[in-house]
Every structure is written in C-alpha cells, then in structure tokens.
C-alpha cells in the first residue's frame, strides 16, 4: 500500500502540469493594451489622433531637422565649422541616398501616415451611438486626413513618385509597396483635404489650440493646387480664407510671429506647438536627438534657437546671398532700399539692415549688448535672428525654445493668393493690394504697380523670399518656380567661402532614401541613377 502510494504521487505530479498548460502559456501583456479592443472611446481615439500630431516633432521634422534640411538646401543658411557630419553634406550639396536627415524626414512623414491610418481604421471599427462621440469621431478622422495630406504633399513634392498607402489594412497586406504616379498622390492629397474640410471646426476652444482647423485644411488644399499649377482652384481656396467665417489678419508686430509671444496669433493658420523647456520640465532637453516618445520624456520644445544661435551651438550663418536680397531698388525711386524685415531676420551690420544689438530685455538687465560682428570672418559674419530670443537672454544653455513653428500663416496665404492671380495673368489691383498689405505691416514702402506678369512675378518672388526668409518655404518656391538650379548656383558662386555650383538637374528631387530602398525591392528596382 505504501509503496503504491509512492508511485502514485509522482505520477499525479507529473500529470498535473499537462492539465493546466493552456492557461499557463496564454499570457496577456501587462504593459500595453490590445490594438483590437483599445480604441473604442472618444478619449482613446483622441489619443490616436494626438499620436499622429506628435510625429510633427519627430526626427526629420519640426523639432530639429526640418529647419536644417530646407534652410540649407535652399541656401538661406550655410554651415559654420561647427556643423559636421550629415548636416554638413546637406550644406555643401554632397548628400546621397544615405543622407540621415532626409531619411528621417521620409520615415517620420510615413509614420504620420500610418498613425493617421490607425485613427481612420479604428474609427471605422467603432460604431458609437452617442451623438457627441459621433461628432468627435468625424473630427478625429478629418484631422487624420489633414495630417495624411500634409505628409503626402511634402513627400511627393520632395521625392516625386512615392509609395501611396491609403489605409492601415493595406500596410499590413503589402509591406513592399510600389511607387505611385505623382498625379495619383496629388489626387489623394486633394481628396483627403476635401474630405477633411467640412468636418473640421473653424476654431477650437482654447484648450485645443494647435489642432488642424478648417482654415488650415483649406490653406493646405490651396497650396496643393498652387504647387500643381491649378491657379484658379488655388485662388478659390485662398480667397475663402479672406472671408467669413474666417477672421485671419496679419499680426501687428512681425517680430511677435517668431518670438516666445507667438503662441496665439490671428495670423497663424497652422503651427507647430512647442512648449518651452525649463529646468523643472518633465522631459529631456535633448529629446530632439531621437528621444521623442522614449528617453526624451514628455517634451515638445524646439532646438532651433540653440542650434542656429550665434552665442550657442552656432551651426549656421545666414548666407550673404540672403542678406543681400534685403537690399533692392526702392519701389518708389529705384534707389538702393533696405527692407525693414532685415532687422527681424538676422544679426549683422547696420549697413546690411540687420540687428546690431541683443539682450535688450535680459534679466538682470545689462545695457543692450553689441552683436560682435567679426569683420575678419572670411565667410561674412551674419547670423540668424528670426526664431532666436537673444533679446531675453545672452545664451540659452541648452535646446529649450518654446517658439512655435509657423507652418502656414496668413501672410503666406495672401502672397500665394497674389501669386495665383499673377500666374493667371492678373497683375492688377487685387494682387498689388495683397502684396502691399503684407509690406504695410512692416512699414516697407508699397508698390504702386506690379507691371508686366514677369515683373509681377519678380516682385512676388522677392516678396516671398523676404517675408518668409528662414521659414522653410524658399526651397519649395525655388523648386516649383523651376529656378532652383540657376538661383542657387549663382548665389553659391558669389558667396564668400563657397564658390561652388553644386546644384545639378537631379537635385530638383531628393534621392530616395536608403531607409526605403534598402528594404523595399519594389522601390529599389524603380530608381534611376541611384538617385530617384
């Protein structure tokens, strides 16, 4: 009996595990929810929408690289010795498909698309009965469509034919998409924005400031039409923004648009929300170097002031070509005229029109400090002032800027509206009025006439260059006007410390980045000359 028991017990013990195997191996994550069941409330779907916005601050985007990419490739900025590595390649136009920042930009735009698709996919899977929920879902889907359009507009403009992934399911079904025709991508941008516009509010409550509004979607659609050369449609969209229900107006102070006071502004149509970093902020000052959403903590500041700042990392100059553009024949008498916007755009000499003092409001207040223009600098010593805040502090001590990034502002819209008239041959009082409206804000002398269409375009181009200098629009303008090669090679040829003419025909598009082509056979086999 005893020995029988001795046998039975071990057998029982051995058998026991067999009986409970299923439950023991069936584990549920304790740190993340299931994708399939989580997004079934307004709040969860709002989180998915916020996650889509958050990509605006990712690598390659507006917390850091976006400035570098488009300021350097448009030659509004040039490198100092401090700029090294990949950024320096952008600066001297020797970049290729391995260019880190371009790869990051591509990655982040597609991440924005995936996250927008997640919002739409989950919204479709949820059928709320509550009216408020239904309204929320409509708005979130519209926001997702806006961001998706924003991503595709930039992708197709910079790279031409790009993979077009229209839904979450399609990215699961085919991890190796082909490049889509450019026309298809533009059509998708138009379609997404057209779908978004009616479901976006004209304005949000204060707490939601920063979300895409109906005006933002209309402005983006107008921009898409303008970029496609659909002048009449562009004109129609932009005109909407000058009328009720919209109440956009130019800010009284130009400087306010690029200072820590630019948080709420009647001129802003869509902006990047940057919270200033302080020493008791929850996030990491350096989150912009890849720590977004991970080791960087919760942080949304921009490092632009630190990177460009002459008393900080001092990575860029403003090119003398850009500086010189601010001095042009006066619209009144043809004499040499220095545009007032020079003062708000860069530090330099009095003769250049740039600001010569900083630290006007520093605490503790010193006397204003003279900007130390180095006359022996072989590169010309002009440095950026736009988006810097040296009037408040002599140096930043880290990347902490809370100045919001202007993605689309009303002055830009007015100039694009003027352009859509001029491109259709109308150089009359309407476009003239729009241009002078923008100039009047900074007390620049007005034009009395735009003259011929060619002359009007010359005026408009300069107006855009000066008004939007350092706002990452010039690259897009030069490319779409078809003058990037001639303009940049001429500027670089005359620039002290440069003298090269690197812009080749292929540079009108960025190279398809390695992060795509190395891992996507269908794209890899569809690239010519190792470029695009």
């Amino acid at each position, binding site marked *: 009996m005893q020995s029988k*028991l*001795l046998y039975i*017990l*071990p057998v029982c*013990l051995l058998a*026991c*595990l067999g009986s409970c195997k299923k439950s023991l*191996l069936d*584990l549920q*994550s*304790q*740190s*993340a*929810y*299931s*994708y399939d069941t989580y997004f079934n409330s307004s709040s969860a779907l709002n*989180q998915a929408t916020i*996650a889509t916005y958050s990509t605006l601050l*990712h690598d*390659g985007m507006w917390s850091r690289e976006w400035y570098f990419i488009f300021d350097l490739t448009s030659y509004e900025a040039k490198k100092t*010795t401090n700029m*090294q590595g*990949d950024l*320096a*390649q952008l600066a001297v136009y020797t970049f290729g498909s391995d260019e880190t920042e371009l790869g990051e930009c*591509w*990655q*982040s735009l*597609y*991440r924005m698309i995936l*996250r927008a698709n*997640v919002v739409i996919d989950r919204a479709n899977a949820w059928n709320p009965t509550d009216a408020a929920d239904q309204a929320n879902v409509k708005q979130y889907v519209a926001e997702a469509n806006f961001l998706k359009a924003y991503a595709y507009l930039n992708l197709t403009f910079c790279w031409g034919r790009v993979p077009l992934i229209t839904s979450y399911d399609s*990215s699961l079904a085919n*991890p190796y998409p082909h490049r889509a025709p450019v026309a298809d991508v533009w059509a998708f941008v138009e379609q997404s924005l057209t779908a978004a516009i009616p479901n976006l509010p004209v304005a949000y409550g204060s*707490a939601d400031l*920063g*979300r895409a509004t109906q005006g933002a979607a209309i402005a983006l659609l107008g921009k898409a039409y303008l970029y496609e050369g659909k002048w009449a449609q562009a004109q129609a969209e932009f005109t909407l923004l000058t009328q009720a229900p919209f109440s956009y107006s130019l800010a009284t102070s130009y400087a306010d648009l690029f200072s820590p006071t630019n948080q*709420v502004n009647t001129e802003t149509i869509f902006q990047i929300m*940057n*919270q200033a970093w302080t*020493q*008791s902020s*929850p*996030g990491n000052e350096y989150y912009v170097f*890849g720590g977004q*959403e*991970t080791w960087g903590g*919760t942080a949304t500041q921009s490092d632009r002031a630190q990177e460009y700042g002459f*008393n*900080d*990392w001092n990575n860029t100059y403003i090119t003398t070509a850009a500086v010189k553009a601010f001095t042009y024949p006066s619209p009144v008498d043809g004499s040499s005229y220095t545009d007032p916007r020079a003062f708000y755009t860069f530090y330099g000499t009095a003769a250049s029109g740039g600001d010569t003092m900083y630290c006007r409001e520093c605490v503790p207040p010193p006397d204003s400090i003279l900007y130390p223009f180095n006359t*022996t*600098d072989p*590169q010309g010593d002009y440095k950026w002032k736009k988006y810097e805040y040296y009037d408040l502090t002599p140096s930043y*001590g*880290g990347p902490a800027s809370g100045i919001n990034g202007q993605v689309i502002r009303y002055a830009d819209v007015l100039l694009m509206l003027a352009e859509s008239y001029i491109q259709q041959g109308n150089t009359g009082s309407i476009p003239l009025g729009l241009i002078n409206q923008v100039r009047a804000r900074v007390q620049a002398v007005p034009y009395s006439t735009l003259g011929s269409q060619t002359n009007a375009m010359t005026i408009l181009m300069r107006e855009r260059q000066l008004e939007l200098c350092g706002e990452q629009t010039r690259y897009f303008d030069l490319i779409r006007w078809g003058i990037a090669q001639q303009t940049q090679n001429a500027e670089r040829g005359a620039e002290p410390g440069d003298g090269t003419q690197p812009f080749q025909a292929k540079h009108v598009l960025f190279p398809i980045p390695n992060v795509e082509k*190395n*891992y*996507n056979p269908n*794209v890899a086999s569809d690239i010519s000359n190792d470029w695009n």
Partner: protein
Amino acid sequence: MMRTISIKLLLLLVVATLFSLTGYAQSALITGTVLNESGHPLSGATVYNKSNRKANITTIQGTFSMPGKKGDLLLVTYVGYEDQQITFNGQELNVSMAPSRNSLNDIVVIGYGTTRKRDLVSATDVVSAKDAGNTVATNPSELLIGKAAGVQIVQANGTPGADAQILIRGTGSFTSVEPLYVIDGIQADKNLFNALSVQDIENITILKDAASTAIYGTAAANGVVIITTKRGKTGPPRISFTSQWGMAKAWKQLHLLNAPQYVQLLQDFAATSNTVLPAKFSTPSVLVDSTDWQKEIFRTAVVSENDLNISGGSEKVAYTVSVGYINQESIVQAQTNKRLNVRMGLDETLGRFHFGQSLALRNTNTVGQLSTITDALGYAPYKPIYDPSVLSGYSIVSNVADFSNVDNPVQDYKIQSPVTNEFVMFPQVFAEVGLINGLKFRSQFSAEIGQGKYTDYQYPYEASNYLTYPTKAYLGYNDYSFYTIENYLSYNRAFGKHSFSATLGNSYLSPGNSSVLQAYGTGIANNNIQNISVSQAQVVNELGYNYDRPSVISYYGRLIYTYNDRYILSFSGRRDGSSNFGVNDQFGNFYGVGGAWRFTNENFARKIFPFLADGKLRVGYGTTGNNNFPNFLTVPLTFSGSPSGNLVYSLGPNEAFIPGTTIATVANPNLRWEQTGQFDAGLELTFIKNHLHTDIDYYDRKSKGLLVSIPLPASNGADLSGNNPTEEENAADAENKGVELTVSYNNRSGKNFTYNLSGNIGYNKNNVISLGSQFVAPITAGTFDNLSTFTITQPGSPIGSFYGYVVDHVAKDQAEIDALNAAAVKKTGNPSAVYQSGLLPGDFIFKDLAGDGTVTTADQKVLGNPIPKFIYGLNTQLTYGNFDLNIVLSGIAGVTLVNSVKFFTEIEATGHNASTAILDRWRQSGDVAALPRAGQNDNSSGNLRPSNWWTESGNYMRVRNLTIGYTLPKQVLNAFAGNSFTRIRIYIAAQNLLTFTHYSGYDPEVSTQGGLNTTQYPNYIFTRGIDDGELPQPRTFLAGVQLGF
C-alpha cells in the same frame, strides 16, 4: 493554477516524509563504512552488490547497509576515487578509497542526472574550481577562461563586477548567444551564475553538443553550463578563511599630443575649414601643458576579498555556510564596487528520502561615476582642471573660445555620484525519494527574487559649449521574481551486461514578474540635502510592469543504455511550449541521439593499441531550440510612449502635454522556434598509466529559422522616431563548424614533485547560410560617432562581419589625383568620371576593388570578423613540496577588431586632442603621410567611411593568472599555532600579467559596443568587436592567505 501545484508539491513532501519513517525490513545485511584516504568517512559513495544487483549510498557517517550474503562481490565507487572491488566476508566492512588518478570514473553532472565520465556520449568539459585557480577569480566565468576547448569567455570590460558572456561553439542565433545555466540541477540564468561566489563553486560542467543538450530543448541551442556548488560534508565543523588584497592598474596608456602639438593640429584644422582660430590661440598660454588628463582619470585601484566558509554535519544533516565580501575599485575614477555573497546549504537524509535546501544571496553596491576615457583623450591639454568662474568650478571649453567642445574628464565624474544597490536571492529546495529497484523521484523548486535601488545626485553645472544642467536627484527601484518547478523520475538498473538509466519528467518555468519605477526631482534649493525628498518638482522617467520572461512548460525524457561497458547509446527528447510564440506554434519537439564505443574493451583493440588504457569513439546528433526573446511579438499592441505617457503633443496657449496612443510595432502571429541541429563526433584516448589524455571533437551545428528582426521599408511607419519598422521573422540559417582538441598530462616525479599540464584549442568557422526567402536585406549594424554601419550579416560570411573599403594610401598632391581621374575617364569612357568623389590631397585613396575605374559602393568587402577562429588555453599546475604554482594562459586568434577610438586618437574631424600617431598626418602638398589631413567632415562619405583603416588584428595571448603558493608544513603549523589551524597557505598572484598583442588600443579583449548590453537583444551578435573605449582589463597583483581551522 500554480498555487494548486505548489500545494500539491507541499502535500507530497509531507506525505513522503511520513512514509519514510517506516520503510521495510531486510533479512540478511551487509554493513560497513567507506573512508577516504585520510580515514574520514565518505558520504554519498555508491556501494553496488554485483551479485544481487542491489545498491546503496553511504550516509553522512560513510556507513551503508544492504541485503546480501557472504561471498557477494561489492563495487564501491565515488567521484574522484578509484573504484574498489571487495568480497563480503560476513564481517562488517571497512573500505578505504584511494583518490583517482584518472578522471574516467568521475561522476559528471548532465541534464537531470549524472553519469560516469567513461559513459558519456557527448562533448563535455568539466572544470573544477580547484584546478582553475579559484583563489584569485572574483567572477565565476573567470574560472572558465582558457579551460574548455571551444568555449570563449568574453568579459564585458574592466569595470569591477562587470558581466561576462560565455560563448560556446561560435554564434548560432541572431537573437541570443546565451547558453543555458543550470545551478545544482535547476535551470537558472546568467544573472544567478554571476551572483555566485567563486568560493562556493565545486565545479562547472559544459555540455557542448546536442546529444546531451537536447534534454533541455528550447533553452539549449547555445550549450549548457552546469554549476555544482559545494555542499556540506559530514564531520566536525570545518572553517576556512581566505583573505586577499591587491592592486589593479591599466597595463597600457596612450601617448597624447602636448600643448604645442595640439595647437598646431587645431591650426591645421582651422585652415582646412576656411576659418580662423579663436583669439586665445594667439596668446602663449595655450602652448603650456597644464594637465595630463589620462593621469587624472586612471588610478591604481585597491581590490580586496575575504571569504569565510563553515561546513560540517551529523549523520542525517549536513550544512554549509559561506560569506564572501569583495571590495573592488575601478581602474579609472571614481567607482567602487562592493559585493557581499552569502550562501547557506542544508542536506537531510531520512531513510529513503533526501532533502536539500539552499539559499544564495548577493548584495552588490556600486558607488560613483565612471570616467569617460574618450574625454580624457580629447580634452585640451592647456586647460587646468578647475575654473572658479564656471558653475560647478571645473574648466570647460567651447567652440567659440577653444575650437573644441569635449567635456572636462574630471567634471564628468565629479558632478554626480550614482549609487546602485542590487540584491538577489536564490532559494532552491528539492526532495528526492528512492522508490524501489533503482527508481527515484525528485521534485525541485527554485526561485529568483531580485531587487535594485538607484540614487543619484547631480550638482548644477555648466558643461563644455556652455550647456547648463540643473540640480537633479534620482531615486529608482526595480524588482523581479520568477520560479521554476521540476519533477522527474529516474531509473538506474543493471541486468548482467546491460545497464539502463532512464529519466522522465516535466517542468514549468513561471513567467514571473518585473517592475521598475524611477523618478528624478528638480527645484532643489541647495546642496545641503542631496536627495529627491527636497525637490519641488518630480518626473517619472522609468516605469514598467510586466512578465519577466516567457512561461515555458516542458516534458522530457532520456534513456541511456550501456552494454558490457563497451557500447553506450543515449536517446533524449523534449517537448516545450512557450508563451512567446503564436498559438499555432506554441509547442516544439526536440530530440538527441548519441552513441559511444569504448573500443579498448574489445580484445582485438587491446592488441592493436597496447599503449591505450582507454579509448572511446562518440557520435551524436540532436536538435535544440531557442526561445530567448520577448513575449507578445505575435500580437499587435498599443504604444503610449516608453515609459508610458511619453508620447505627447502640446495643445493650448500654454502648450499643455496631451497624451497619445497608437501602434509602433508590426506583430507576427506566425513566430516559431529557432531550431539548431548539431552533429558531433569525438575520440577520447587515455594512454597507459593514465598520464596522457586526449580528447578531440568535430562538430557541425546548423541553426535554422533563426529569428531575425527584419527591417521593413520606412514607408510602413510602425516604428519610433528615428527608427525603421522591423518585423520578427524566422528567416535566417547559420552554421558553425569546428574542431576541438584537449590534451592533458599529469605525473609525479619523485616524492615531492607533481605536475599537471593541459592545453586546449578550438577552431570554429561561422557562416550565414541564408537570410530567408522573404526579401531580406543584409543586416547592418555597428555605427559609432555618427558614422555609418560597420558590420554586415549576409549569406556567405560570418555573422556580424566587418564590411567596408580598403585604403590604398593618403593622396600626396593634386597631380596624383588628376592622374587617377584621367585614368577613370579612360576606363569608364565617361568624360566627367572621377576616381573617387570628393577626393582632395591629404585624403585616403581607397582601392578600386571592382576594377571599374572608380570607387563605388561595389568596392567594399568583408574585412574580417570578431568571432575568433581559434580559442586556446594552456594550464600548468605544479606542486613541489609545500610550494604550488598555477599558470593559466589563454588567447584567441583569427579575430578582427574595429578600433573606433581612432576617431579620437588619429582623426581630427572635430576639435579634440589626439595621440602622437597623428603627427604623421598629411599637412601640405607632397607629404607622404600615414594619416589624412586635419579637418574633414565626420561622415561616412570621406576618409572615415568603414574601411580596413579602422580594423586591426585582435589576436592576443595573455598570461591570465599566475599564482605561487606556499603551504606551511604541519610541524611549523603546530609549533606556531598549536592545533588551532589545519592549514595555512599563503600566496601571491598576478592577473593579466603579460599580454602579447599587436592591437594598438588599450586592450584587445574587446566585447561589444557599449560593453555589456543587458537588453533583450544583446549586441554580442551584430556589434561585437567594436572597441569604443571601454575600460580595459586591468593588471592585478594580489597577495593572500588561506586558513583552515
């Protein structure tokens, strides 16, 4: 569910204990005592009655009692002793055992059981702690260095208490190279292995081939390391105490530029960059050397270790208690590592029952910040250490004022003082019951419970380039725990010439639980109180709670059959289910087959090989798996930042943080087991008189369906900022083939001189066979200093091979470049062709390997790899009278390293100091120089692209350990201390005394980028062998004393 199992286990123990008190009576009894060479009882010896095939194990008093009759032939065996045959003469027996001179009768621990070494069918190494010179090792893995053929010990770096990686027979996985660790028969892990005190280890067995490892199935693809700890032995309390003290130091320093040379370098740099140096460079102050920064961070570190062990026991209970304390300073400022190990073990014998309990504890305390070596290499030599005008008081440099932004190396370690405290506890209990006729049942339970605490206080400071940092105080906790339950039946029985050994069991590995929470506080008023409790704002910067590991359920069995002591066959099988696989592929089956033929037991063989005492031929094949990767890769999960809550965007006029949630991974519901099939053939020869023993093995290890993190195109978008999306796939196949040879010789000359020499060498060839049928690009990794990837993993070359261009020489002048370009035009027929784009005088000219006239990406090749072709070790143990000498040499050959520190020492792409090698740089047209000009973009399109300029041979041979000891003679001992001591031995030792290498960096013993990476995907696979300035292995001199009471 597990609670019920635990309860059942308890019930069993209680019930079984009750039964043991009864037992059954015998009619005729053989009784006796087994004694060792010095007359002490031997417990645990096996007494086997050949006549009636009954066996018994001696008690703690060395006694046995078993049925039998006069004239029965008894065989007495014990690990490390010669077998004894004795005939029962009806009297109580006194058996004296003599220590074995050959190890064939040694009992070797294998998976779920033991076997005699002579009966092994597989490639197995046993390293006993005594042979390994355990007295000076501070880390268990050090015991294995140079000891086992084909086993490489890669020490993470020279940081005190640093981890080490054991690599058995090459690299056979893309996700983990971790062998399975088994401590006293229970599955454990590397953490526990490293937590053991070296003094507590009896021996370590390494199972290398799949015939023996298959019984561990899923966990065994990288081999099995079985650790046997010391257990209590019967007798009066025995106390031993060891104390050793020593000093450790880096064995090499680099030669850096002095201030005038440094300024000249910066001037060259500025000239190339079309700029001028800041104003201070026109003053003489920069030409004066102020500080030797290497001297400021390197130091002579004090190390000490004290160990105390008490053991003893009575008839039914044996105990052992040991306490060890190691205090070790780092060889650079300013870290101290203190480790306290405690181990307690109890063994109870109660009739047919045997119970054991042990508890191992370790507490590790690490204080202080480690210096950054590359800062000491690069910081301006004209700078003093201190500068009172800077916040925190340490000097800084800046691009604006100094043309450099390297951080002050002293400031690095002075401004903060992290304290890490880790506590780990490892309880083990088992109960074993002898059922009947050789059948035993064993049930065992173990758990690992660990916790850590982290504090840090950072003074407010201004770093180079005027970056300011606030006062911060950190506080963090983490803990984890899991347990393992195993039950198995084992059966050992001999019938005439047939003997069987069978095992059948199951096990359950709980997924356990782990959690972490860390916060920091800011807004600290002053430095008087240096912790988070006075901070005015707090942020949680680490947060996690989840299962600690996959849960695994296993069923396994093994049968070993021996015929006539000649033919041995072994079959094993295992079925494993693991929670980290998709529902469809949760279970995997593994098997192993092995056979051995002891041909010297054949009559014909004895005639042909009269010089052989023993000869054995072994062949085996088996499959094993790998599930060493995280749970939940098979299901899509939400992502809210890491830690959760870090995914935010700002809204509102004050830019409030609004939380977001999305998806950031691509799930693969079809994940399966990695499968490794290994063939092994071996020949073991023992020559007459057992002086010479050789062991040779050939293996072929093919790993299939290796899990690969396949990069998906960026357009997929399911990833984190700055990353590409990836998907886990069972895609790749890889192979390791090799030969291992071990030769040992031991002998005695005269009365006083004994010697034991052994050498081993392993040759391994690693090769990636395939990356799968799906579109898989070569896996690239190993970036440093923002340069491009340096390693490639692709079919046809070893895993993690270095890949890049080949440098020809530095371009002398423009004429040379013009000539190359002209040739390129001619060869390509393209009038605008250039030989190498961007090439200027003073740049590296790379070789046009493809021969198409220009340097393109096609001119790259495999430049070597960090998996050594040869691993070898030489061991010498001599005793002469009371003196003993132990020398361990170890080395690797056929290995390539990437010396990424050259970015700081031999290249000037940013402003920093360099080594004197950079004096041989190109400076002006016509210079024939070894190194390119100062001033160049630090990216991968120019001179700094991956090339053989970065790679160096990593071959080295090291005198790892040299110990000379002297044991006081008995008479001196008695005269000196009466009878209080049984033993006094004094010794001196040196670790890493000599290193023979051509490597130009601090130390050729390079592990992997970032030292040891303990995340789920260890970079031992794809970024191994890149020297990024980790702490070198120190040279240590020690003196110590061992006392026995």
